């Protein structure tokens, strides 16, 4: 697992993908920070800068996960992974954690503006950290879905677009819920909405149920990815 994690992480930064993702997120945070500071006061930075974390991560996560398992299938490097004395789940966890780490890096660097701000003012750390933790949890869940989608295809493009589509769908699913008449279906649909789970964190609150929800999504999709890889052996 650690070997796979290290290799994956290295491959992100051997290719431009890791740098571009981190740089793009950092640049976007910087831009929003600048805009907020140019137009108003520091009290808005938590809402505008870190409130946008959710949509930025939607943009970047598909790129981070698109090659997670597609490349291994295409280049047949999965043969060395699957014939090594390591379980499939350990391989998937290694890959998942590597992707998550890139995202973590990008999000954490995105906190720099707030740190800079804190020298001159007192930004609302509760909201900022809430956003940060919420983004990491949301990102982890989305990354596990992205890794799963990348195990379904050998095309990076399809994996990226598929993941993006799913993340948009999960974001808007709660507006779908409001137009469903059947109460039970509406509840279920609302329950799986990622954005309503996330928005609790943006208010600077830590919601255990939402955290558990996101962590469960990660576990489920890591499990499903492992099953998917295992099933390829049997096809």
């Amino acid at each position, binding site marked *: 697992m*650690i*070997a*796979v994690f*290290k*290799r994956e992480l*290295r*491959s992100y930064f*051997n*290719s431009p993908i890791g740098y571009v993702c981190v740089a793009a997120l950092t640049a976007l945070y910087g831009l929003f920070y600048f805009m907020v500071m140019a137009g108003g006061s520091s009290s808005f930075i938590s809402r505008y800068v870190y409130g946008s974390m959710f949509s930025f991560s939607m943009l970047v996560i598909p790129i981070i996960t698109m090659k997670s398992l597609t490349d291994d299938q295409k*280049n*047949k*490097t*999965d*043969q*060395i*992974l*699957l*014939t*090594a*004395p*390591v*379980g499939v789940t350990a391989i998937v966890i290694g890959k998942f954690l590597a992707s998550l780490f890139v995202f973590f890096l990008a999000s954490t660097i995105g906190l720099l503006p707030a740190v800079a701000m804190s020298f001159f003012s007192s930004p609302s750390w509760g909201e900022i950290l809430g956003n940060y933790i919420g983004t990491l949890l949301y990102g982890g869940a989305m990354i596990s879905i992205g890794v799963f989608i990348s195990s379904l295809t050998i095309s990076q493009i399809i994996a990226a677009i598929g993941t993006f589509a799913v993340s948009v769908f999960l974001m808007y699913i709660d507006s779908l819920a409001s137009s469903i008449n059947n109460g039970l279906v509406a509840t279920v649909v609302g329950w799986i909405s990622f954005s309503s789970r996330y928005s609790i964190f943006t208010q600077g609150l830590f919601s255990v149920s939402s955290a558990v929800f996101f962590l469960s999504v990660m576990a489920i999709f890591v499990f499903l990815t492992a099953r998917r890889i295992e099933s390829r*052996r*049997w*096809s």
Partner: protein
Amino acid sequence: MVEVRNLTKRYGANLAVDHVSFTIEEGSIVGFLGPNGAGKSTTMNIITGYLSATEGSVTVSGKNTLDDPNEVKKLIGYLPEQPPLYLDMTVKEYLNFVYELKKASQPRQQHLEEICKLVKIDNVYNRLVGNLSKGYKQRVGIAQALIGNPPVLILDEPTVGLDPKQIIEIRTLIKNLGRNHTVILSSHILPEVQAVCERIIVINNGKLVADGATDTLAHDLSHDHRLILRAEGPEREILHAIEAMEKVVDVYSMGEKEPGAFDFSVESDMDVDVRRDLFALMARNGWPVLGLKNTDLTLEDLFLQLTSTDAGTHAGDGKGEQ
């Protein structure tokens, strides 16, 4: 060491491997022979645990692939048909990754150095795998299989894409490895298998069609006992004289191969050796014998005979040419 029982792999309606069974003893080099698409790679992939079998079992060193997959994987070093290389790593990074992945216990630095020397990649140790030539990539693939020093090596077409000099080097390497490893090697290049392997398993359309020692397999499987005689003299008279011999079943002329000398195909009864009588006959008539040889099937003939549908009626033809 490696025991394969009734191995079957089905892809939908297509039967890729059909009830194949064989046992490989410790320390032998076995050649897996078959045309493209015969099921060689599938069989190897199943033994190494990359694919699962539809039916049947694989046991390595007494451990079953279904019960202890990771234990079995520890015992096997595998070079797939396409070396599983990460092109964005250097050879050093890649081998270190494999070392960690396989949880090898040998002292790392020394172990990797030894392997690199063995397969002669120490001079490209710090280069990017993606920039290496096909031959070097293949060797890195072999190096990868050797990491952790597994007792069983499974090499799927290890010399594909190499130049003749490299092929000879790799063959020598495999032979040397065969001294303290059990090696299973697949190929569709016959001389390769003949040069390296002690035993050959021929597989065609997913079925095991022949299994035996390299030297005797050809002999055991040849159904006709023919001799090719090259003699100087009048074609027609020689033909008649041989025809008149008791134990000869069939004889025909294969034409003039040297000025004044003809080749004759002489077929005798199964267990009869007519070479002495033939020599005496020629000597009596003053026809110099320029050549006399057995036509035990070569591996090539054997291969064609076993794998073609019109089972080699003329296997052995064209062998009069020297």
